């Protein structure tokens, strides 16, 4: 599964994506974020205020409690500033 990072999150991590294989205990996107944070101090710090981020699964914004079944690409999206 590919995890994408954008904007200042990407800058802080110094990479735009990770290729990960989460354990079976990771069932939702929320679980995935917890697991990623527990394995990466920089990500854990950058996401200290987690609810400001939106998540996408296969290029669709979805709620945090969405199952990861079928997820090929998950993105962690800092607050958006387009328009």
């Amino acid at each position: 599964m590919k995890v994408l990072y954008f904007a200042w999150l990407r800058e802080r991590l110094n990479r735009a994506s990770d290729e990960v294989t989460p354990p079976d205990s990771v069932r939702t996107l929320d679980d995935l974020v917890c697991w990623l944070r527990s394995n990466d101090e920089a990500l854990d710090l950058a996401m200290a205020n987690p609810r400001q981020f939106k998540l996408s699964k296969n290029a669709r914004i979805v709620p945090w409690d969405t199952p990861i079944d079928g997820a090929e690409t998950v993105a962690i999206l800092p607050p958006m500033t387009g328009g």
Partner: protein
Amino acid sequence: MILVSASPFDPGALLAAFAADHPHAGAAVTFTGMVRSSPDRPINALILECYPELAENEIATLRGRAIERFGLIDAAILHRYGRLVPGEAIMQVMTLAAHRQAAFDGAQFLMDYLKTDAPFWKQEETASGTQWVEANTADDAARDRWAK
């Protein structure tokens, strides 16, 4: 029409083409967002990062919601990414309806959601460096007024 692109666009030509597509609509509202550089806060450029695939999907969903909610005849959304200099158009929203209030409401609805729910992130390039534009809580409030 939806376009998420790194290429410049011409606001006037797009309005002309959009209106020509629907010669029998009564009201068109066009919003054009441009790179702003003010004397008290001059910038050299605005750099927009984007997740294009997600942007296209989310904008398509928003467009469909706006058309249904306000009874629009059509709606078009264009959004650039990449490096833009002051005066360049960042994005444009166009709505067409039989009457003016629906066209205005549809355009404002789309703008309010695009500000907070479309995956674009702005960086300002100034003489002293480059910094990310912070999200604006007023934008969340503007979007939330459409909740029902």
